[in-house]
């Protein structure tokens, strides 16, 4: 165990909270109807991102998935440009062309994608370029455990291993692939799978920012020098907002009357239809779906919230945490107010 300085803990806290506060503001704007389409948040993943990014140096590349806000915020992308992009504004980070799933920053070598698993090949290419240029930079791939069944990601693991490329593969594992429990559609054990490629891999609690920081503190510098090699981290986490804002399973808990009201009729008719499968199979199938809805409730719990966890683990820093909270909240409030005022002015003109 490397001793963590108080300053490091406070920096990690600040990084996590900056992302969280912005994403809470985004949630509000989405609820108000200012953001269209899907919105996938990284709320619950902050410890993984913050812990890893604190060891990242200039020139390192990061390929993210569809939950790209936290890595973009923590890597130092201007939050105003980010927020404007999510609002589809021409002054946004990508001129309003990309939206939250397609964010890019060439300066910071940051990419994102809505195609599951694609961060694997992306990171391999960045690592290849770094090695080719003989720099000591690495590339990081962030993806969910659902992506671990996507061919291109598995191919990337092999490519990175066989070509000795400095890719840090980070599997943010919440065991949900949209509305599917990942362990039910996954053969074997993920770590065994990765180790089968000859890649060093370890499992950590992704809600514990100190654990993530510790785990990558020595691993990342090791990847930079000498014989380059990939490294794999499986970090467990929870998404309080489910797969996306308006998550179809979580809606059953938040507005049960409305949701069950809408599905009960067609579902009952289907179960009782005179044509169809054996009745035990029908009932079994429905029971399984209902149990899935029940299980999805666990995501709503705060027990795996990385920010609350750090606050609880480090009560002695409570005063400093409060100061950081106040500072960030007022920054985000000012940012949102400013952006929304600009938008309103533009609309009225």
């Amino acid at each position, binding site marked *: 165990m490397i001793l963590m300085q108080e300053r490091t803990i406070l920096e990690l806290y600040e990084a996590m909270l900056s992302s969280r506060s912005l994403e809470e503001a985004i949630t509000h704007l989405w609820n108000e109807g200012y953001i269209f389409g*899907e919105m996938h948040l990284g709320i619950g993943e902050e410890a993984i991102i913050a812990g890893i990014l604190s060891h990242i140096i200039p020139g390192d590349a990061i390929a993210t998935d569809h939950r790209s806000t936290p890595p973009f915020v923590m890597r130092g992308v201007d939050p105003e440009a980010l927020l404007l992009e999510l609002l*589809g504004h021409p002054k946004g980070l990508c001129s309003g*062309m*990309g939206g939250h*799933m397609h964010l890019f920053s060439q300066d910071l070598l940051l990419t994102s994608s809505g195609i*599951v*698993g694609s961060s694997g090949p992306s990171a391999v290419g960045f690592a290849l370029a770094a090695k080719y240029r003989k720099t000591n930079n690495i590339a990081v791939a962030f993806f969910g455990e659902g992506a671990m069944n996507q061919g291109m990601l598995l191919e990337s693991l092999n490519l990175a291993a066989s070509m000795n490329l400095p890719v840090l593969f980070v599997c943010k594992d919440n065991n949900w692939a949209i509305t599917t429990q990942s362990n039910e559609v996954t053969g074997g054990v993920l770590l065994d799978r990765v180790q089968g490629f000859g890649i060093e891999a370890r499992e950590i609690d992704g809600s514990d920012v100190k654990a993530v920081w510790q785990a990558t503190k020595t691993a990342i510098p090791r990847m930079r020098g000498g014989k380059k090699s990939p490294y794999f981290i499986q970090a467990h986490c929870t998404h309080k907002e489910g797969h996306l*804002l*308006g998550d179809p399973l979580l809606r059953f808990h938040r507005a049960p009357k409305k949701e069950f009201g809408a599905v009960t009729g067609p579902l009952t008719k289907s179960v009782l239809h005179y044509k169809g499968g054996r009745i035990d199979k029908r009932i079994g199938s429905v029971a399984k*779906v209902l149990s899935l809805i029940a299980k999805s409730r666990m995501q709503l719990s705060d027990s795996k919230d990385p920010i609350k966890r750090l606050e609880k683990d480090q009560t002695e820093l409570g005063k400093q945490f409060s100061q950081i909270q106040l500072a960030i909240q007022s920054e985000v409030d000012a940012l949102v107010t400013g952006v929304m005022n600009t938008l309103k002015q533009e609309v009225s003109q």
Partner: protein
Amino acid sequence: MRKMSFADAIESALKQAMSEDPNVFLMGEDLHTFRVNILAQFGNERVQSTPISESAFLGAGVTAAMAGLRPVVEIMLIDFIGVAIDALLNHASKVYSFSGGKWNVPLVVRASCGGGYGDGGQHEQSLWGWLAHIPGLNVVVPSNPADAGQLMLSAIEADHPVIYLEHKLLADYWLDYMGTGGRENVNFDVPQAGVQGLVPEKWEPLPVGKAICLREGSDLTFISLGVSVHRCMEAAEILAKEDFSTEVIDLRWVSPLDTRTIIKSASKTKRVIVVDEDYLQFGLSGEIAAILAEENGLKCQFGRIGTETTIPYNRHMEDNILPNVKRILELARKL
């Protein structure tokens, strides 16, 4: 006749097909949620949820079909077909030819398609022209509930691979999941005639590759499919007030393409505008232009509206880049 939504019509036709033929089954991601009613009626052997492994389960769908089953494999969004395209490009489409016409692949690939709800360029593509480019693949794009159910039956009963594309502005559950997310304060330009409509009591398949003339006219022909059909109907209504008689053809099938209906209408009106939500370049509209150019003795003016760039996330820009009534009218008045 009974009233039904676009999404319910597909579900109802699938249930009918599954009742009649035990070889029909569904496979794809999250089907226990998206196809919960079919799951409840038929159980999980007929509604199989998969991991996020499109290349594997679509490839497996091809040979399951070759083994005599009638799989309906779902690719959640047609944009994701990129991950699994080999199964279609080099296998599903070619086995019949390679085997000297001795082995069929009765596979249905069902996917959502289309934009207009702010999801950006990786989730809102149409891609039907891209897919129809491959010999051996049939591509169908329904525009209303009755067609949606009947064409699903056509797709299942066909002995060759069919890509069945449902537009997210027409399928209410998709729009709810991807666009509104349960909110009541966001609105999209949803053509109601495509979302709700009368459907037959019992589903019968429509002929493969047959278009339909939705509105007769003598001065101009709009050729379209999917959501754009409704934009064309709206434009035709406006043009009628200007004493301009417009014919509207809903292609239904991109492949096989109903060249007879296209040529017949072009011969009559001598003016054709193709309105295609898919990419403009190297696609359906160019194909129709070629068909008209190749027809001996036919002289007609031609125009086209399609998507020319990556679909922007910005809602305003997106609405301008996708075919809309304003753009259709502008071109119609110019032609």
